[in-house]
């Protein structure tokens, strides 16, 4: 693979396997995703979607095979890679006994964000939580927590943003804010999103992946996807059970 080709790839996954004991959560997954793409990952529960994202975000080591994000190996270049990626999960990943501002300032310190107070104010305003910045996050609603979680994930201006069912439990207003934020940065970032919502996932994506039992069932660019056939393939995986 040429150096030029590597720089155009956000994800390079080669024969990736992750086992928990004898159970393979990922079994020989291979894919490439260009920089600037939006990948939607679909699959039934237990298909290996979250495990794939955890490996790509350096939270889990692969059992075999390799994965590179922006040309960086998820194992050997993990610390460097973490400065280039962000994760918005269905879990808010925030400390309930810190205020909204303290949470963001803490993570700004962890990432070495320059002018942290300015950046934090900017993001609190973007997610419409500046009026609640001094409140403990344990007093926040689910939607507010998710909005703050989006601000946390964008603090260090990551180039690749992983979204693990980000719309789960959001009210329509919070969904609009998330849509707006994604739209604002869509062109300059690469997105990898796990979703159970076929309509939403297909609406946003440039590439779609269906996983089942830890294996790739389908991986195609959006323009090559026939929606009806895609839905039929997805439905056929739902009964396949866990890996």
């Amino acid at each position, binding site marked *: 693979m040429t150096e030029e080709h590597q720089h155009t790839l956000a994800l390079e996954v080669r024969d990736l396997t992750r086992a928990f004991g004898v159970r393979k959560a990922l079994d020989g997954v291979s894919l490439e995703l260009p920089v600037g793409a939006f990948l939607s990952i679909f699959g039934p529960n237990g298909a290996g979607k979250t495990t794939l994202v955890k490996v790509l975000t350096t939270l889990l080591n692969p059992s075999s095979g390799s994965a590179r994000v922006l040309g960086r190996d998820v194992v050997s270049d993990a610390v460097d890679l973490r400065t280039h990626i962000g994760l918005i*999960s269905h879990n808010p990943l925030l400390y309930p006994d810190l205020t909204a501002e303290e949470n963001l300032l803490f*993570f700004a310190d962890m*990432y070495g964000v320059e002018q942290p107070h300015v950046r934090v104010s900017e993001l609190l305003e973007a997610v419409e939580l500046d009026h609640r910045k001094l409140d403990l996050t344990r007093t926040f609603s689910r939607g507010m927590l998710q909005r703050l979680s989006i601000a946390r994930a964008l603090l260090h201006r990551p180039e690749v943003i992983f979204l693990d069912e980000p719309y789960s439990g959001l009210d329509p207003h919070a969904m609009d804010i998330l849509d707006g934020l994604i739209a604002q940065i869509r062109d300059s970032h690469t997105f990898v999103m796990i979703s159970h919502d076929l309509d939403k996932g297909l609406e946003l994506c440039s590439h779609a992946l269906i996983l089942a039992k830890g294996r790739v069932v389908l991986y195609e660019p959006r323009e090559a996807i026939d929606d009806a056939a895609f839905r039929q393939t997805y439905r056929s995986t739902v009964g396949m059970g866990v890996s």
Partner: protein
Amino acid sequence: MASASGRQLRAMLRKDIVMELRTKEMIMSMGLYSLLTMVVYFVALSQAGSNFDPRDIAAGLLWLAFIFTSMLGLNRSLVHEKDQGCLEALLLSPVDRPVIFFAKAGGNLIFLLAVEALTLPVFGFLFLQGTHLDWGSIALLPLILIVGSIGMAGVGTLLATMSVNTSGKDFVLAMLFIPLMYPLLLGAVTATGGAIVGGAQGVSVFWTGMGWVVGYDVIMLLASYGLYEFIVGA
């Protein structure tokens, strides 16, 4: 890189202290448990008779209380991180895993020392009133408390990280922590006993015990440092 690690370590320590000052969960539960243990000791030993010299067992009583008290706090410190996936957020940030270990162990050490500072005067009041004390050697007590607590906080943080994802985390932590504390307990009780008894022989015993505890700290902290990345990634 070193300055980044220092900044991250300070941020984590500050965060733990702010959260603890706000909730007082660890300090309250550890402090209350430690004080109640002193009261239970006092009641249990009140019928020991006039020939009983509490200095003979004072060191053991103290360290038993500290060991059990520390287990309460160690579990709480990691539970905070598990709440709402905070540990995951921490692991996603560009921080070397040993920095997380030192920050968590540092926080646990501060809270443990605060509880010990609260317990020690109560212990002295209940058990050592009217006994002859060599104040020169008693002044060595803070030293062994600090050095012993470093080992407890370090090993405890490692084991709490291992056990936090298990279903019976309290049980798992106790099963791992108490056997691993045995060498430290032996050295710390020896040194503390030497400091309480006092005199030239007591001071000599103190330094022997201190040697054990310092050796334990160095070995266990190096092992914890080396193992932490593997444990949080498992």
